[in-house]
């Protein structure tokens, strides 16, 4: 019996940026530099941080879109009811993994094939994994369209993505990932392209589906307010490393790492009477400290599953 859907240990992803084919000096960018986290079943983890900190790289490495450089990823395989290491999989098992781990992308305008009908788009994963008979598949498509709130489904089946609004397209993306009945879905800023008014309905839909279908999310966002609404726990990433990870309310009320504090202090609050606490840090110095820590950052538990990176950060305050 295992309680996590995914366990990540010291995940590293480097990109080779050596100049020229014959160059002797290997230059690498450490996009993800030894991060570890677990996601318990039925819970959602928010991954927040500024652009370029490695959030999306983590997501792509986790679902095998890009090969990771090193580290261990164990995932829960519902077919065999046990944890499996991603490195030990044969082709058949990789297929199983891909079925159980889905991804929802940021931009619904680019992640749907413009020449395919909605029916084709949602049918594709079913065809690839050869699930059910042809009639069953069409039924599954109709069913999932109803689940994501595109009703009546018959009206949507023959339409093309350009005929739909941004919110409807993102619903199609969600339908496409959930039609496989995954246990783990990686969401890469699924609502940041959407308008304020539509955003909440998509977020509510995802929360509802997580509850009904027992799905866990890794929810990537740069917006802490969105992460708070969606996730049980939040991990804060900076320059390829996780600097703090804690339960959502704990992290917001009791941040410890200076970068987390800076991040929280920079979120505007929709209340004109509220004045934010000003908190500024020296980013060049933080960059240095993080870069000098070539070893994996040790995380210290400060209580109640609240982990903070332990490098020396006392003198960062300006």
């Amino acid at each position, binding site marked *: 019996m295992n309680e996590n859907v995914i366990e990540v240990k010291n995940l590293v992803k480097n990109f080779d940026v050596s100049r020229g084919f014959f160059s002797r000096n290997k230059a690498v960018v450490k996009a993800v530099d030894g991060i570890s986290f677990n996601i318990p079943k039925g819970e959602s983890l928010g991954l927040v941080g500024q652009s370029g900190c490695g959030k999306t790289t983590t997501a792509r490495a986790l679902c095998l879109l890009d090969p990771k450089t090193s580290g261990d990823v164990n995932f829960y395989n519902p077919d065999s009811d046990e944890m499996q290491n991603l490195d030990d999989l044969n082709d058949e098992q990789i297929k199983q993994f891909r079925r159980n781990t889905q991804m929802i992308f940021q931009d619904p305008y680019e992640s749907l094939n413009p020449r395919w009908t909605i029916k084709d788009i949602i049918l594709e994963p079913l065809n690839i994994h050869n699930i059910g008979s042809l009639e069953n598949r069409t039924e599954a498509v109709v069913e999932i369209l109803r689940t994501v709130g595109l009703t009546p489904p018959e009206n949507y089946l023959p339409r093309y993505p350009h005929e739909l609004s941004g919110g409807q397209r993102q619903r199609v993306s969600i339908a496409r990932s959930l039609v496989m009945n995954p246990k783990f879905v990686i969401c890469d800023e699924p609502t940041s392209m959407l*308008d304020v008014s539509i955003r909440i309905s998509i977020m509510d839909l995802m929360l509802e589906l997580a509850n009904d279908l027992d799905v866990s999310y890794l929810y990537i966002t740069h917006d802490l307010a969105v992460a*708070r609404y969606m996730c049980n726990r939040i991990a804060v990433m900076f320059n390829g490393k996780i600097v703090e990870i804690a339960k959502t309310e704990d992290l917001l009320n009791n941040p410890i790492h200076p970068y987390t504090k800076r991040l929280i202090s*920079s979120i505007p609050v929709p209340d004109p009477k509220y004045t934010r606490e000003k908190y500024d840090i020296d980013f060049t110095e933080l960059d240095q400290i993080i870069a000098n820590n070539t070893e994996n950052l040790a995380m210290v538990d400060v209580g109640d599953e609240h982990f903070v990176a332990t490098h020396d950060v006392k003198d960062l305050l300006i």
Partner: protein
Amino acid sequence: MSKNILEVDNLNMHYETLEGNVMAVNNVTFSVKEGESFGLVGESGCGKSSVASTLLQLQSDNAVISSGSIKLDGKEIVGLTENELRQVRWNDISIVFQGAMNAWNPVVKIGEQIREAIREHYPEKSKKENTEKISELFKIVGLEDSIMDRYPHELSGGMKQRAVIALALSCDPKIVIADEPTTALDVVIQDQILNEIKKVQKLLGLSLIYISHDIAVIAEMTDNMAVMYAGSIVELGPTEQIFSSPKHAYTKLLLESTPSIVGEKKKLRSLDGEPPSLINKLSGCSFAPRCPDKETTCNPELDMELVEVSAGHYVDNCCSRGA
């Protein structure tokens, strides 16, 4: 009592398209005082940016201002010729555009691009004077002088946006329009830019029109605000008052659909449906088809018109009676 620097009165603007006229701005009336910061908020396509472009008379060729007036410091600018407009733009009113990346010419150094704007308006000034002026502006927005000799691609998004703000200030305008100046930026950088804009505004006593879809940013940046929906202003008034006692159903929804990191974690409300097509004139309350709070006090058949509910706080007459 400070005077009005900008008065927009009953402005109507539409775009002529093959499918018909898109009524982008309908009967928009508002004014901005000296040193005031005024916010325009609404979802995409509600006409925020159309209002901004008409204020500078930068609207596209198929845009027609059918009626209304825009008075800038007492001077009417609707109907001015292109030559007359060149005197107004940047001298009296300037704009900070949304994408800092797209606002710069990639093959000209930043300093030269700002000098060009100053030269256009003050041809008598020497290059040295202009460079000093830019150096002064850069100090205000927190950039080093060496940035002047850089090309846009050498700068980060936040630096480019700071330089765009310096560009907007280069001819000492009385009023600056900021059209979503931080949407393409990271939260921490956004915070820095917002502080910079606030600082500059206070320092120079500027009037500011801040356009955003993010109600949290509007809450922090503005004294007065207007909520736009489908080309019309549905609520107008002091920011604090609109946040503490919103009157229009759409404003209430906007406020209740914004997640926050402080206070109780609340269930947020979502807004179903889509904004109406603006082709051809809408009659009655344009929000009525999506309105979740329809009450007996609603008057959806009345044409849209702002009614004063308390001092300086106006709301569309459909929602005014329940207030």
